[in-house]
């Protein structure tokens, strides 16, 4: 019995170590906390990922306008139709390895999609959701 418990414990440890983290994501989370964000929620990030906001041009936009709802699948730029590589680091290990790049795309994409920059809390929730995707 004890043996089994230990096994399950080890298994869950191994699983937990699969959660994706890079120096870039560590630095991002630290920065968001410095800006006043507290606990980061993958669940909240997931909800925000599909949240639709009306644009000044009259269309409705969400992250999934260009990225796929399934993070392991590629997306497509709404206007140029250029393929966007999957967001999930499990299938695209290059994701979230460059802090400057993460910030660049948060800034651009939050503004295009929601018409404003995202807060530190929102960015943290997104990052938690995206890095946990398998």
């Amino acid at each position, binding site marked *: 019995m004890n043996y089994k418990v230990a096994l399950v414990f080890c298994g869950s440890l191994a699983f937990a170590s699969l959660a994706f983290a890079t120096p870039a994501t560590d630095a991002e989370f630290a920065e968001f906390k410095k800006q006043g964000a507290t606990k980061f929620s993958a669940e909240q990030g997931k909800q925000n990922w599909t949240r639709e906001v009306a644009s000044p041009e009259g269309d409705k936009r969400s992250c999934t306008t260009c990225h796929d709802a399934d993070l392991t699948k590629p997306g497509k730029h709404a*206007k140029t*139709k250029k393929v966007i590589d999957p967001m999930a680091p499990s299938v695209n290990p290059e994701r979230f390895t460059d802090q400057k790049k993460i910030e660049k795309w948060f800034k651009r994409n939050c503004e*295009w999609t929601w018409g404003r920059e995202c807060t530190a809390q929102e960015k943290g929730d997104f990052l938690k959701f995206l890095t946990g995707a398998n």
Partner: protein
Amino acid sequence: MTLNKTKVAALLGLSLLLGSASAMAEDDFWSWLGTFSHTAGVAPVKNKQYNEECGSCHFAYQPGLLPAQSWEKLLTPAALHNHFGEVADLDKDTLDAIRDYALANSADKSYYKLSRKINTATEGVEAPLRITDVSVIKRKHHSIPEKMIKDNKDVKSLSYCNACHTKAEQGVFKEDTVSIPNYPDY
């Protein structure tokens, strides 16, 4: 005397060559000189950062497709904040690098044939923001029916160069490299 004349001519020729080379964008003159078969289109992009920054959203249009005045208008912080309806902000260092590359290789500074034509077509008119607004580009596509471009689900617009120009990335736009999706026999 004849020897001197030959010498003078040779020196003159050499200095002309060197002079025009230094007036051109860096090493491009020499690669242009060495590769005659490529001179028909525009110079391919040789800057990784330019390719990455521009190419992450759309075909990385070569600087030689527009004159410097156009790039000057397009590549400012304000212009990029509303880049044909998209938010394409770049940090200052990146924007400076992209802009420098575009300006150093713009149509007015290139020997490539298509760039020369584009330069001629945009001289004396207000610098266009869109490559598709350049008269010579419009004229070249004029005879292609709308159903093959605008109403073609795999093309949609003249803006997607590489939808039909199979060697667009190399700066080659010759007719025999064109393949229009869904119209194999055109």
